[in-house]
């Protein structure tokens, strides 16, 4: 157990994956020589050489496309999209090939590709540096999508993603990159597809992920002082979603709030709500509230705090649902 940042945990996960499997490659823009704009890949090129850890031209589509070709040749690519919005130029390759190739070849060609990207907002970044692209990937059959909320989670999920025979999108909550936590960096813990209850409570369940987990926990503590017992679930695996845990928590608490940074319309909260209705309708005692980013472009730094779900907004939604 040591105090580590998420950046350090991710770096260790990449290091251990490169060590344990010599078919693993790490490439993308600025990940080699400089170690990445967030230093997640720092030192990897020194340790594993520039054949396994290398910089590419600024060509997101070709980065994803090359990973597909490398998979045909038996390599496991871990590629970086430098920021959330910069994955958009690669969408055609990701949707048409990365996600579909295994099915198109009837399982003859696996796509063990990991696409990592710093995601979500909260760091006063410029436009296109604070986007929450999960909907694009979660809606795309054939992909798995995970996002860690702690260093320990980050280590484990990255290792599992790289070892997975299917393509996994890893959304790294950049706002939590530098937050330290006491973490065991190993593979024990919930896997891809498993959500977990990170705070017990029986009056309402907040479903969230990424950087919002920490904020929801604060909101839950604040509510506790006013006698509202809030359960918090870190969904963690956005695709596949852990419908069972979602349904169980609603059956047990009867009320739900979903919190995410992405715009509300067709954000993950819509899917979580739909599954709650499908699986736990009879137990639902109040409408599900969505505390999310708004249906407008991600705002400039000066307004970021007014756009992202705040503790106040979360508390307000919980009170509303509990008081329904």
């Amino acid at each position, binding site marked *: 157990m040591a105090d580590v940042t998420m950046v350090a945990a991710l770096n260790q996960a990449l290091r251990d994956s490169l060590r344990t499997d010599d078919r693993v*490659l790490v490439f993308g823009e600025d990940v080699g020589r400089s170690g990445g704009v967030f230093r997640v890949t720092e030192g990897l090129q020194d340790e594993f050489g520039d*054949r*396994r850890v290398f910089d*590419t*031209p600024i*060509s997101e*589509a*070709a980065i*994803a*496309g*090359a*990973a*597909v*070709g*490398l*998979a*045909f*040749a*038996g*390599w496991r690519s871990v590629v970086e999209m430098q920021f959330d919005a910069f994955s958009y*130029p690669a969408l*055609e*390759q990701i949707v*048409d*090939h990365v996600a*579909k*190739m*295994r*099915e*198109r*070849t*009837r*399982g*003859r*060609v*696996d796509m063990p590709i990991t696409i990592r990207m710093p995601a979500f907002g909260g760091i006063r970044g410029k436009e296109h540096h604070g986007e929450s692209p999960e909907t694009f990937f979660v809606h795309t*059959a*054939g992909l*798995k999508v995970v996002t860690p909320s702690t260093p320990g989670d980050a280590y484990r999920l990255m290792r599992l993603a790289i070892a*997975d*025979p*299917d393509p996994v999108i890893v959304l790294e909550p950049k706002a939590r990159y530098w937050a330290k936590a006491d973490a065991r960096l190993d593979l024990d813990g919930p896997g891809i*597809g498993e959500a977990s209850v990170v705070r017990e409570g029986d009056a309402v369940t907040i479903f969230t992920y990424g950087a919002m987990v920490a904020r929801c926990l604060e909101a839950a503590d604040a509510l506790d002082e006013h006698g509202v017992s809030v359960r918090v679930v870190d969904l963690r695996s956005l695709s*596949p*979603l852990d*419908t*069972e845990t979602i349904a169980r928590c609603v059956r047990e608490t009867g009320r739900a709030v979903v919190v995410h940074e992405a715009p509300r319309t067709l954000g993950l909260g819509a899917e979580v709500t739909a599954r709650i209705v499908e699986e736990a309708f009879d137990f639902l005692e109040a409408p599900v509230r969505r505390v999310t980013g708004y249906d407008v472009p991600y705002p400039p730094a000066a307004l970021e705090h007014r756009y992202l779900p705040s503790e106040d907004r979360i508390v307000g939604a919980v009170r509303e649902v509990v008081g329904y």
Partner: protein
Amino acid sequence: MASEPAHRRGTEPLRVLAPDGTAVDDPDVGLEPDELRAMLRWMLLARRLDRECIALQRQGELTVYPGFEGQEAAQVGSAMALGADDFVFPTFRELASAIVRGVDPVQYLAYHRGTWHGGPYDPRATRFGPICIPVATQIAHGVGYAMGLALDGARACSLSYFGDGATSEGDFHEAANLAGVFGAPAILFCQNNGWAISVPTDRQSAGEIWTRAEGYGFPGVRVDGNDVLAVYRVTREAAARAYAGEGPTLIEAMTYRIGAHSTADDPGRYRDDSEVDAARASDPIVRFRAWLESEGHVDGDAIAAWDEEIEAEVLAVRDGVVSQAAPPAEWMFDWTYADPPAEIDEQRREVLRG
């Protein structure tokens, strides 16, 4: 008076045989007489098969089918030039290359039968990638594969086919540039057949495609795509460069799409027949056959014998295709993930309930 296809203007392509079949350059490309005969036979089989597929589509046995008549030399010549370890990433129009590379045409045609998409055949076993429809996306696959070969120190290369229209896509550019930067053992093989559906090559780009290679730092060559010996030679040389670690090559094979873009297309709406007539005058099969006959490698009897064999082979393919039934519905769910998540199993059950 027949008008030359516009894309034929500009730089003269490399040639071994003139359209009339006379050699204008050393015709010894390193093939034995029986290999040369096999080359012609593949071209004859390919054309006959292509026409059968169009007939099958008309009869409702295939969905939309993209014919390749006129491109037999470009496909057969390039496919024969590759070694057994080389890997091809095709578009949707390379049935001729596929059969030369050993892909079972019945399996291949499952794609157009509509019974499966992607790679109905085994891409790994045949070293022939899945049919690829999103224009130009397969080029990056070929380059990535080649990067993998280099990492393994393998003495092999990849070849990605694409059309003239595909060169307008960002994917062509990014993949070509990537190949140049990493010196990947990749062949970028453009079949410039003059048209991208209804758009002629001179409206697709104001430059010549082969000249793009310089900007990526590797050689580009324009070859007469209807001259199977020339195509064979330049592809062979590109493969030799790749094997020797000298990096990628861009080949622009000047050919012509004699037929429609696909069975769903009517070229009468945008193309002047006189252009097609002019193109027919440089038919790749006529040309190569004339040279083989002048060299005494084949004669009418040999070809008549082949025609009978080919007829039988093609009818066997037809029987195989028409007997292909729809796969079971659960196949929709069987390969999306290595281990399907709960909701997919549930949806699978939903379908089986009917």
